[in-house]
């Protein structure tokens, strides 16, 4: 279990960062040197392996790839329901439970996504979001081996999601293997579907590290902020525009 030391150090880092005010603006990247090294490694892995696999998988008919991704999504719904509850978002918990039931039955084991057509589109949640909801600060930006961009809070969230896994105890080893294959399929589908985007950021920008960092943080904060406005109606967008003030004074 190589994860334990990582988990412990992340937990410690988070406790420390939780003492200071939660920071969710600007860029907090004290580990930039290490991060950049991992970024280079990840780009090399993408170039040699993930990219080609994604490209090869892209040949598989779109509907089939979508089906595999749908099944993988459906299997992650129980974990999302738990996080919804932990976030006190009971509406979302019901929403995702209904999605699970509908897609697992009418969607033939999750291959199809009738829930979205029925007005129950995807509403992702994860333990990183739960931590944010609980007031834990974002922490530093980190680049994880293979996984790529994250923050201390999201990295810890990821580890907890893996350990929390509500389906894990219910599956026998062969089912667990099938699930892993579906997950790989989903990731390969993402890489294939958004290949232009990945490639423009990773291989066509002057500083791909800076671009990845910005893209990840902007998007993640947007997703978390959106959840906040959805359920509590608080305005989180106000602070984000200070960036323009310098240039339009």
């Amino acid at each position, binding site marked *: 279990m190589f994860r334990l030391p990582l988990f412990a150090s992340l937990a410690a880092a988070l406790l420390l960062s939780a003492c200071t005010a939660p920071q969710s603006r600007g860029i907090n990247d004290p580990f930039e040197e290490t991060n950049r090294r991992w970024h280079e490694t990840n780009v090399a892995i993408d170039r040699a392996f993930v990219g080609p696999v994604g490209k090869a998988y892209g040949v598989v008919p*779109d509907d089939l790839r979508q089906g595999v991704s749908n099944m993988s999504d459906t299997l992650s719904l129980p974990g999302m329901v738990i996080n919804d509850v932990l976030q006190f978002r009971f509406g979302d918990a019901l929403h995702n439970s209904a999605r699970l039931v509908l897609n697992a039955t009418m969607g033939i084991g999750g291959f199809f996504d009738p829930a*979205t057509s029925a007005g129950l*589109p*995807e509403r992702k949640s994860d333990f990183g979001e739960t931590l944010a909801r609980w007031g834990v600060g974002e922490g530093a930006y980190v680049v994880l081996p293979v996984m790529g961009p994250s923050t201390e809070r999201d990295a810890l969230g990821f580890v907890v999601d893996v350990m929390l896994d509500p389906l894990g105890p219910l599956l026998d080893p062969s089912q667990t293997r099938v699930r892993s294959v579906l997950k790989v399929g989903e990731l390969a589908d993402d890489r294939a579907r958004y290949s*232009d985007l990945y490639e*423009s950021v990773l291989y066509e*920008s*002057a*500083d791909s590290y*800076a*671009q990845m960092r*910005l*893209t990840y943080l*902007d*998007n*993640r*904060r*947007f*997703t978390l*902020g*959106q959840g906040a406005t959805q359920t509590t109606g608080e305005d989180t*967008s*106000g602070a984000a*525009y200070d*960036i*323009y*003030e310098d*240039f*339009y004074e």
Partner: protein
Amino acid sequence: MSNHLLTRRSLIASGAAFAMASVMPVAAFAFSTAQAETLIGKAVSEINGIINSGKSENQMYVDFEKVLTRYADTASIARSVLGPTARTVSSGQLNAFTKAFQTYVARKYGSRFREFIGGEIKVNRTQKVNSIYDVQCTAILKGEAPFAISFIVHDASGKFIDLQIEGISLLKSERAEIGALLDKAGGSIDKLTASLV
């Protein structure tokens, strides 16, 4: 006759001024928000027209650059992506950079238009934040879940200065990119400008 006319005119004018003054405090805000939304509504309908025009991709880039110059405050965007350097260069250098940057943006993002063909952008609502209007839209593309796009319109110029896709700011992204390119050009804006075209 002329006197009468003058009186009438001034009467109308002062009446109008009074009417304006009485509604101003409320109307000024609503008017500007509506104006921002109207601007983006027009830009979006032009963009929708382009992505469904059936023209070649190269023709679409040209059309896209026209929309960009008409609806975006490219001079401010160019200054913003240059950062502090913008204050140290001559106006000639800045103009040359702005032109080059405009073409670079049209080409860079225009090439992504392929994904938008057959799609549609819808304007949802507008939110005022300080001197910024956030015009929130939804992009509905074929075979993809709808996603959020925001045009950020600035008060002073009445044009948009940023486009955010699912929270990802293209202005910030270009600031990082141009900053890195400027470093690569050894801090020379002329070299940077030359590298963009």
